[in-house]
């Protein structure tokens, strides 16, 4: 995960604590998995501000929120990408980092 984003998430986690949920929009399972790991167990590449920091934040992929948002908004924002991306692989990649 981008070092700047790591810093922003760390700062938001300090500010909001347990009320913070991370929603990912990654298009590749490997990238989604890395991002999910970074905001739960810490930066696996040991390059950014979250290296060795276990935030343990609840993390979801945007596709998992389909039933929680307005169907029209979901269709506009994610309908096309649902046809393009491997939805199941993305959800599995993120899900394994939720307790």
């Amino acid at each position, binding site marked *: 995960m981008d070092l700047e984003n790591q810093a922003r998430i760390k700062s938001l986690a300090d500010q909001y604590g347990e009320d913070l949920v991370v929603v990912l929009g990654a298009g590749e399972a490997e990238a989604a998995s890395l991002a999910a790991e970074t905001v739960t167990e810490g930066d696996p590449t040991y390059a950014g501000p979250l290296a060795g920091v276990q935030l343990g934040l609840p993390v979801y992929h945007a596709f998992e929120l389909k039933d929680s948002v307005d169907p029209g908004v979901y269709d*506009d924002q994610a309908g*096309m990408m649902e046809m*393009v991306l491997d939805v199941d692989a993305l959800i599995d990649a993120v899900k394994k980092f939720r307790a």
Partner: protein
Amino acid sequence: MSFPVIKGTSYSLFHAPEMTVHQGTNQTSERHKNPDSEHLKDIPKSLRSFDEVVKYPPNQVYIGNVKPEMLKCHKRPWYENPLAVANTDGPYGSIYAEDELIAFIKVVDVFDLVVLEDSFQKATKVKLENRKELQIIDKQLAKLDTKGVLFDELDKLVLEDGAEPMYHAGRLVGCVKKAHEFDAVLTSHVMFENLASKATAAINLLSMFAKTNLRPEEVDYIIEASEEACGDMNQRGGGNIAKAIGEVCGCVNATGSDTRSFCAGPVHALVQAAALVQSGVYKNVVVLAGGSTAKLGMNSKSHIEKGIPVLEDVLGTFAIHIGENDGVNPVIRTDAVGRHTIGAGSAPQAVITAIVTDPLDRVDISLKDVDKFSPELQNPEITVPAGAGDVPLSNYKMIAALGVKRGDFIKEDIDKIVNEKGMPGFAPTQGHIPSGVPYIGFARQEILNQNIKRAMIIGKGSLFLGRLTNLFDGVSFIMETNEGVQETTNVSKEEVRSIVAEALKNLAQNL
């Protein structure tokens, strides 16, 4: 409407393994943070030879020796399956070795910042003299006749004076000195990046003059669309790299300017060039860019971890000549330019709608009527192991999926559409280089050969990297078969009044 045409193209690559190790940002950052890192020890062992780079299938496609479609059936991984027949020269350009590039960096340096070791300078001068495309600048090559320095002097310049080193085959052979005592944008490293960009773009423009009918003195305007910034501390991106390149190449009647929009810059520049030609401001405009040394080995950590050679070891360049409608060459449909507007939104669907289907709808052309789409053509062998996916494939799927949502295609046909209207990525991941432009040379030839009628060129850019906006960027245009020059009739206001008056008179009489 008499649309402008694409008269010629040029594409060249420069093998830069030592620059990958010493100047690629991924490596310079690592050296800054952790000078003893394993990556810095591993990278020299995973570099490719010049011969491997020449025989690498995507590189042969880039210079035009092989069509992109060939890659669909060529055995993967491509780095383990070189082409049996490969050449350093192709119809669109050439592949140059790193020593030639280093020597040419000295040729384009007008501030005596570049210093080369004497024996290296003499040997590479001979190589450059044998390049046919460089013979029109023989007077400038004479700069290499001056006496070079000794190895000891180079060591001193690099170690004591902070000059940027240039290596060849593991040995220090030259350096670039800083251009100011403390100006952060005139450091030796920044000067090296800018000179490398200038040198690569200049050689590629000279290659265009050698391979097409365009003469240097016929060029009216140059738009440079690389990702470098040239200036000083008072105007960090002041420019004008375009004129600096034109000066090297003998474009004595040209002026120019630089256009930037991250990876979308080249397509913006092409739209501007088309407008300048169609409006009659200029007859011949060249849009070009040199390579980015910062991006060399950008994903090399991932590649080495997976046992893949460092594939980001070449600098890419392009040059596109836009001219007045000649009734032959493919036209640029300036009435159907796609643009991602500030208010369009950044969801992928909104982006593809803005840059692909909106311009087509405007001129009543269906997605089905576009034979080929050329979005970001990053080589997937570079991006997939780095976790960034197959970028062109994702773009083709998005275009097809949007077509399904609009009713142009059926869902079951997505893979078929992707195969018919797409192509595997073959461009080095140099940011501005893969973004739509690498296919323009092929598209021009395929349209001239009547194999296809229409192609859409798409550039996309990640503006958020500059930390001034979270906006995305995208721009596109259609190039298609030239139906012949259409005569336009200029009718004056008086003539229009007279025609309307005549019509009203006839109407009144009939009433």
